[in-house]
């Protein structure tokens, strides 16, 4: 059973000499880490640094609400771009919950923010770090800046929420700095994706498998992010308030940002993405994945109206359903044929263990 493939691999290694599959995978892993992942993490850190400054400025009255919201949307977008790249430190120990709390079926975000600001204890970055993850991240920040029930034009209300806003900005900045340090440190994540074997990856194939796993998880999550408000889990009854980023009406923007980032991992910068690992006889598959990205991104760009608006009209729902099917195709191609073409087993025990 396993021998023929082992034999073929060894033969290929002999024929290709220095360009063995392992070498190619190592080069691809290093290229994706250096050219795609690290720049995206760096943008995220910059967006969070700006968020921290922005919260201060807004609360001190030197910036208006529109500016505060724009800075938030930028940070939210930077976070969305990271989601197909969630490997390493940020992917471990439920750290992402600190950045965003979704799904939020029971409006825990709204309720816990209200509880926190109603309590007598002072809120700062230190106390927030010990609080529930629900109030530590962008979801709580969004609630404060966008929820219709809050009136930040009222000075008393603004003063009530500002300490939390500033604390979240600080917390996000610190978190991003910590994660980026773990990427850049000696023998850190960036190094581990470029030097094999290492304590994390026994070989480059494991790093590629980890990258693909993050892609598949992200594409599956995008389906859930669209499918939940579409009512796929609630007998077809639309649930606009279950969408990610519904308060800021940015659900489809964040979805597009994630999808674009996933496409970059696939295509790579200078063509050094996962796509480059497919051989000449696997080009038909590569073309189908290219096309699947193109049509999904096209549907998104042709229907720029906010998600809630589209959910409310028959035509809008139809195009969202089309988008869902396109995401599904993309997800299935990655999970099935691409994984198989790259010789990667995904979630064998995690998804189908006993």
């Amino acid at each position, binding site marked *: *059973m*396993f*021998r023929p*493939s*082992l034999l073929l691999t060894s033969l290929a290694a002999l024929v290709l000499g220095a360009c063995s599959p392992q070498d190619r995978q190592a080069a691809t892993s290093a290229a994706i880490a250096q050219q795609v992942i690290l720049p995206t993490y760096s943008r995220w850190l910059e967006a969070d640094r700006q968020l921290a400054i922005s919260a201060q400025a807004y609360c001190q009255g030197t910036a208006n609400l529109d500016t505060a919201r724009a800075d938030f949307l930028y940070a939210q977008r930077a976070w969305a771009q990271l989601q197909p790249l969630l490997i390493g430190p940020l992917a*471990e*120990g*439920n750290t992402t919950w600190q950045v965003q709390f979704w799904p939020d079926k029971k409006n825990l975000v709204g309720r816990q923010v209200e509880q926190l600001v109603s309590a007598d204890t002072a809120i700062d970055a230190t106390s927030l770090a010990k609080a529930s993850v629900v109030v530590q991240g962008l979801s709580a920040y969004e609630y404060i800046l966008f929820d219709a029930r809050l009136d930040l034009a009222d000075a008393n209300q603004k003063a009530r929420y500002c300490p939390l806003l500033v604390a979240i900005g600080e917390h996000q900045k610190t978190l991003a700095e910590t994660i980026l340090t773990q990427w850049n440190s000696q023998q850190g994540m960036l190094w581990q994706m470029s030097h094999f*074997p290492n*304590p*994390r*990856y*026994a*070989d480059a*194939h*494991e790093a590629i*498998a*980890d990258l693909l*796993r993050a892609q598949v998880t992200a594409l599956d999550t995008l389906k859930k992010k669209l499918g939940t408000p579409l009512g796929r889990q609630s007998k077809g009854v639309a649930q606009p308030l279950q969408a990610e980023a519904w308060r800021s009406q940015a659900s489809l923007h964040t979805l597009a940002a994630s999808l674009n980032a996933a496409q970059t991992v696939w295509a790579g910068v200078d063509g050094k993405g996962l796509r480059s690992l497919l051989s000449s006889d696997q080009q038909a598959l590569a073309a189908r994945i290219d096309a699947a990205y193109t049509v999904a991104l096209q549907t998104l760009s042709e229907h720029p109206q906010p998600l809630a608006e589209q959910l409310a009209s028959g035509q809008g729902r139809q195009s969202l359903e089309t988008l869902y099917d396109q995401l599904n195709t993309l997800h299935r191609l990655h999970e099935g044929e691409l994984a*198989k073409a790259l*010789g*990667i*087993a*995904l*979630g*064998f*025990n*995690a998804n189908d*263990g*006993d």
Partner: protein
Amino acid sequence: MGLAQWWKTLLTPSRRGLLLSARDDADGRHYAVGYRLDGRQVFATQVDQRCHAVVEHPQLPLALFVARRPGTQSYLVDVCNGRLLQTLTARPDRHFQGHGVVHASGEWLYTTENDTSDPGRGVIGVYRFNDGRLIPHGELSSHGIGPHELAWMPDGETLVVANGGIRTEAESRVGMNLDAMAPSLVLMSRDGQQLSKETLAQSMNSIRHLAIASDGTVLTCQQFMGDTATTAPLLAIKRPGEAFQRFTVSDEQWRRMAHYSASVAVHDGLRLVALTAPRANRFFLWDLDSGAIRLEVTLPDCAGVAAVEHGFVVSSGQGRCRLFDCRRGTPIATPLSLPAGFWDNHLHL
């Protein structure tokens, strides 16, 4: 043991270091495999149904690859060459649950099974080795619902059963009673008599897998079926003479296991306990006596774990298998030259 059998034992090549496991290939075909730790394949026998755990015969070079639930075929294989000697088919209205044990006499096999005419009723199937073949002999109650792993206490006569507490039907893996689960840890004599039955605090915490230390300490690992926001102890311990209770692990660490464990193993010499959490892609090691954490590392889709002389071997559904040398303070991992990925839930060494 008869003289002929003794001769056969003597002539059997050393079984030490032979890794037995169920494994798939990229096309989803199922195999019973045996590999040396240096990477040499001893056998890879294709089988119809996906298997779960492997039980070795104490004297003969035989191993039973037990069907994963709700499988109905377990495979008796010659571990010298992989020859399929017998396909053991479950009795009517029964299916295997993935685990079994052989009595030290080499005469009796016990397997966990589900009574599908009363879905979830736990059954221990009893089979007798007769001239190298398994013959159904009878059955016992598991004294619980949905039994999963079973193991021997060090006396070799007392069975430990992890009753997962979940009812499932024939040809199905879907839990029917998630709102009324009843997991339990049962000790019973091998004639079927219940000696003790203990539970954990949360009824949705399914007790699945077992490891027994040579001093009689029982370790269990769980899979939590409840809410993601709830914390659940996925490792529990019953020390000799003490009650069954959660292992000492911080809430933060429980949360890092993603509510799912695949296997638990114990190292008697080093007094260590190992746990795999494939949904969290994490492998854990603790000091058995003090409960101190010795290692927590990322290991994608890690599942099978077994003790070897200096530590543990861990298999993965996604990446390479690792040997963890635990003789020094911080365990050192070495990737093994075994094929990567598609290793199923358990490995036997």
